[in-house]
């Protein structure tokens, strides 16, 4: 096995100080270096060594994460507990007292397990990295469409996607609508008052009163469609391509209500 940058072998003495990822790493290193039994850690010795390392790291101005200090206080606490006089062995009915080191040992072993698992993953990754798949171009012709990978759906990708949208939106120049753009509702009112004057008129006449702009035409046409839906007008045509006439009609009882109408749904 090659060097994976792990300090997992007992003879790795020359360890760069900043290579310790955390206090558990450092502690394991010290235990290995001292060749002591992990189930019977000489806590005074190890605590002393640990504190010496911390001091050294501070002197070297290494960025000392808070976790290292927390571990230091844990060690000192355990040490102080082991120094306390043991309870009278005659009073064992309270059950054997837990070794204050036990919780720490459990954490160390657990940590070590996952380091070994990471090591295994690294080997897997290396093997897998040595396997190459086919090129995309070799199926492009047969597939007939471009390959787009299926995305993992999770909250992170969802949020990342949303962030992408928001970022794009903020970069996009704001669409400026002409300030005099008339609303469809307003246009309906105009057309209705116009029709109430004449009762009927030609389709083209409805477009005649504006500025002839594209926006005006579209608003007028949409207003017309809406009026048909609301059964406010009738249209008739004399044969294919004949003239279209628009008639105002009495509103039937079952007709939909216009938007914004308080009687509306």
């Amino acid at each position: 096995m090659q060097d994976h940058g792990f300090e997992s072998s007992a003879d790795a003495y020359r360890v760069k100080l900043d290579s310790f990822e955390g206090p558990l790493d450092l502690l394991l290193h010290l235990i290995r270096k001292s060749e002591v039994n992990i189930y019977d850690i000489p806590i005074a010795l190890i605590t002393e060594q640990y504190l010496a390392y911390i001091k050294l790291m501070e002197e070297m101005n290494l960025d000392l994460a808070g976790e290292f200090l927390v571990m230091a206080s844990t060690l000192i606490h355990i040490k102080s507990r082991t120094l306390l006089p043991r309870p009278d062995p005659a009073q064992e009915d309270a059950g054997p007292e837990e070794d204050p080191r036990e919780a720490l040992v459990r954490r160390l072993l657990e940590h070590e397990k996952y380091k070994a698992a990471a090591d295994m993953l690294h080997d897997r990754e290396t093997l897998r990295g040595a396997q190459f798949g086919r090129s995309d171009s070799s199926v492009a012709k047969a597939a007939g469409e471009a390959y787009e990978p299926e995305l993992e759906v999770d909250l992170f990708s969802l949020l990342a996607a949303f962030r992408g949208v928001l970022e794009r939106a903020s970069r996009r120049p704001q669409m400026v609508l002409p300030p005099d753009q008339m609303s469809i509702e307003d246009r309906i009112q105009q057309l209705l008052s116009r029709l109430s004057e004449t009762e009927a008129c030609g389709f083209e006449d409805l477009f005649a009163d504006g500025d002839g702009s594209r926006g005006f035409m579209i608003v007028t046409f949409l207003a017309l469609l809406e009026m048909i839906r609301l059964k406010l007008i009738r249209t008739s045509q004399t044969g294919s391509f004949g003239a279209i006439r628009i008639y105002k009609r009495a509103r039937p009882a079952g007709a939909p209500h216009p938007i914004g109408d308080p009687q509306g749904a």
Partner: protein
Amino acid sequence: MEDVQNSEASPAGTVSAELRAIVEALIYASPEPITIKMLCKLLSDEPQEDVVAAVDALKADYEQRPGLQCVEVAGGFQIVTRPELHEWVRRLFHERSTQKLTVQALETLAVIAYKQPITALEISDVRGVNTSGVLSTLLERHLIKIVGRKNIVGRPFLYATTKEFLIRFGLRDLGDLPKIGDMAEALGFDPPGGLSELEPREGLLPLAEGEAQVDPPGSSTS
């Protein structure tokens, strides 16, 4: 690999099995058809005639592969699927493309999740691109549903996420959706300012009778 069993079938049994293995791997993995010249360059220790012989042997070998063939294309060699099987390959790609969630679909889903209920036009506005095709994918996958019509001209459908969506993303309810700020803190995101995540619902119309085609009974979004 060292011992290629059916090498007696090949016209170039003299070429070392190792060379043939290397040549096969190179042709297979090359991003574009690989030329003899390129092969010789990569295999600089091998005499050119051996490289040519290895390619020839491989080509003969591939005559006997069931689904693949080794073709000469643009002066180089490439391993491709047999043309008579292309219909199957197309089916595979089609199957994948109708099912998969793409960047497009995910973006649309995200906009709906954070701004529901929302119309197709509003989604397109936020995304800056037309969205209509993706909506049907999301509807088919039961990630979104139609919850009503917006009370504006044209009465467009309003879309919202489904219960299935919540299950899929491991959420209890919509309040569980991470705020952009949450994620920023935890994971170093940088949210752009000025855009609110959730807007008050306005103008929601209930669906008329018989319109509730997509809305499963008893499903609720919030």
